[in-house]
């Protein structure tokens, strides 16, 4: 079964505001976490990643926060734009053998209001 899950299936945000998408994972041994963006009819696109030895990582307009104590992961998007409308997935990897399988949450659909 899935080892990660998203808190809310949908998120509506005003253009220009900040977005926060949350994700919980169940396995404390998870070693690596990734956020993906998927636009309609396309494959998921890598946004940002974070390893378990980090608490925070920043990219261009995006920040991922990892709270290992409560097994919670979040993606923050600054100054949300219409092009940010998509489904966002969190995923994790368990450090088992050499298969490095990626386990996905169900996804949060983000809609940006003009």
């Amino acid at each position, binding site marked *: 079964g*899935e080892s990660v899950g998203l808190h809310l299936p949908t998120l509506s945000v005003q253009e220009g505001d900040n977005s926060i998408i949350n994700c919980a994972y169940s396995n404390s041994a998870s070693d*690596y976490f*990734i956020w*993906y963006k998927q636009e309609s*009819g*396309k*494959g*998921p*696109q*890598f946004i940002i*990643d974070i390893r378990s030895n980090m608490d925070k990582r920043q990219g261009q307009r995006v920040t991922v926060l990892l709270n290992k104590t409560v097994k919670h992961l979040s993606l923050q998007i600054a100054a949300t734009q219409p092009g940010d409308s998509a489904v966002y*997935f969190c995923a994790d*990897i368990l450090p088992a053998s*050499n*298969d*490095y*399988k*990626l*386990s*996905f*949450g*169900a*996804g949060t659909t983000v809609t940006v209001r003009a």
Partner: protein
Amino acid sequence: SQTIHQWPATLVQPVGSPLSLECTVEGTSNPNLYWYRQAAGRGLQLLFYSVGIGQISSEVPQNLSASRPQDRQFILSSKKLLLSDSGFYLCAWGHYPRGRGYTFGSGTRLTVV
């Protein structure tokens, strides 16, 4: 440069017909390769993964099979499609732990009628 190719983009097949979806990777060697399926409005379900030529692991019992005849080629097949096989199929190439993340192909929208 490193790229992943997946085809066809869309496919409509009758129930009971065979299936073959192909995925190829360029710009790397011995990649970990994965097949995922995504039902409408749902998350991604891992179907098969391969860590090398001829090495296939199945995640869920199903009507599908996978093969890896060459290092950078991954094929998803079925002898007889079911209506429940409809979905969005995605091939992925895992960079971790040598690199970051996974790169996904553009996907194949399969509709079984």
